[in-house]
């Protein structure tokens, strides 16, 4: 525990002065702001022409009625996509920076277990991603209220908060696979390429009705209404997602422990 505490605190120290931390938070603040703008345009069709391409884009999105259920549904789907990219980026950076900054060799011959460093990195990734989820959710609610979305009820909000939280959590659980690629490729590029590929594949498998069996499509399907054919999650879906997470975690731990660090 003493070792884990030391490695965790040092992982937090490593975030000091880092622009990346602020960039990710700004990104997760920017997205709900844009979402609010889209809904605002939806509520005021007369703005479509005035706002040019943004207005046209908003009209094409078919966001549904500018009410809280539709807004929150859009927010949850947004988390499944934006979260995949944002959390993937965070994971790539936390693990990949040791290689791109060439500091990896300095943390291997220390009186701390490598597994402890890996776990600490995952804890930091987890906390960071949860905070990003909270920022995304809270600012979405704020912007929703500012633009005057109708139909607010505590029941709707609490139901969607649960769905949103679960979608975020399931997305976060996919981070270990990204960490594995960041470690084995010793950098950021491959894991980010992997994240983009999984996103494309998630859409593709969704079209084919195989989404419930593709790990990276599963978080986005958590909030899908009952009865949607080919989109219902089953116990197998959760087993697939948890297994993917576990394989990523074990793979990352094994790589740090057994690979040659040249």
């Amino acid at each position, binding site marked *: 525990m*003493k070792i884990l505490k030391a490695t965790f605190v040092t992982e937090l120290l490593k975030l000091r002065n880092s622009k990346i931390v602020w960039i990710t938070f700004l990104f997760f603040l920017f997205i709900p702001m844009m979402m609010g703008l889209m809904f605002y345009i939806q509520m005021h069709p007369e703005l479509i022409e005035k706002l040019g391409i943004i207005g046209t884009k908003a009209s094409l999105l078919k966001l549904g009625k500018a009410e809280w259920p539709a807004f929150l549904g859009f927010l949850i789907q947004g988390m499944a996509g934006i979260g995949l990219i944002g959390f993937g980026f965070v994971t790539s950076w936390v693990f990949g920076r040791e290689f791109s900054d060439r500091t990896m060799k300095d943390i291997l011959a220390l009186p*701390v277990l490598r597994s402890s460093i890996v776990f600490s990195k995952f804890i930091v990734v987890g906390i960071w991603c949860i905070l990003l989820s909270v920022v995304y959710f809270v600012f979405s609610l704020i912007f929703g209220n500012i633009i005057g979305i109708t139909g607010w009820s505590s029941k709707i909000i609490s139901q969607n908060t649960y769905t949103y939280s679960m979608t975020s959590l399931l997305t976060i659980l996919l981070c270990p696979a990204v960490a594995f690629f960041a470690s084995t490729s010793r950098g950021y590029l491959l894991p980010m390429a992997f994240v983009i590929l999984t996103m494309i594949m998630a859409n593709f498998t969704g079209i084919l009705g195989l989404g419930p069996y593709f790990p990276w499509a599963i978080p986005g399907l958590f909030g899908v209404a009952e009865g949607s054919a080919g989109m219902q999650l089953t116990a197998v879906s959760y087993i697939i997602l948890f297994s993917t997470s576990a394989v990523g975690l074990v793979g990352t731990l094994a790589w740090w422990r057994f690979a040659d660090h040249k």
Partner: protein
Amino acid sequence: MEIINTENLTKYYKNVHAVDGISISVNKGEIYGFLGLNGAGKTTTIRMLLGMIKPTSGSAYIKSKRVFADNIELWKNVGSLVEVPYSYPDLTVRENLEIIRRLRFIPDKSSVDQIIDKLQIGAYSNRKAKNLSLGNAQRLGLAKALIHNPEILILDEPTNGLDPAGIHEIREMFNDLALNQGKTIFISSHILGEVSRFATRIGIIHEGKLIQEIDTKELDKQCQKRLFVNADNAQAARAELIENGYTLGERKDGVTEVLDNEAIKHPDIIATMLVNSGFPPTLLQVEEEDLESYFLRIIGMKGVTK
């Protein structure tokens, strides 16, 4: 007392023999200079000593305990620096050292200030690592290796990037650590002239193999001396030397080289003989091989005589 030793340490990468059966032993208080050209296998050996690379065969030991990744107790008394030192670029010198202090469980917070003073990087303590010069980055790397006052130091080319004054200062520090404080230092370099100034023993590695181990005190004796002779009538002088039983060579510029050890030790005998024969020498030069030439000769990259 044996502090660092390797037994037939070997590392292959596919068909490349990066390190091939190296067995070395470093005793307490020794400064062991590990010398080799770039790509000779120095860094791979050091990484195996530090548990970063798993040997294909053989083992490395520190204080008789086998080195492997999970044997973390070993590193409490080891300070290391591998290749060019890098630190977290957005963190200051002090913050980088604070990270190492915590990971080494050093309770005394003033250890950061102490090592900053020792390595004379106080003026840069609040500067981000990415803005340090190569020399100061090297000092920060050394500070990270020394912050816990380790018994053993394993350092890969630690004077890279330092100016002559910095090299002198670090050399003095190593001497003090080994001679006065009994620390054991394993240090790699590709410059024999530099490492011979403070190492007590030198191991030369070439193409993955340890080809020579020598006490630094013996180094001078191993360096070859050559005697060159010339005279106005060079041909007659050569004939006279041959007639007196000397074995000769010839330098590229045509100057005669006397190859007999006795003549090299006593060039005055040659001078007397040539003067008495009526061919007084216009050149009588004993040339001592410098350390770099010796190193290149040992690894087979330079011929001795024509």
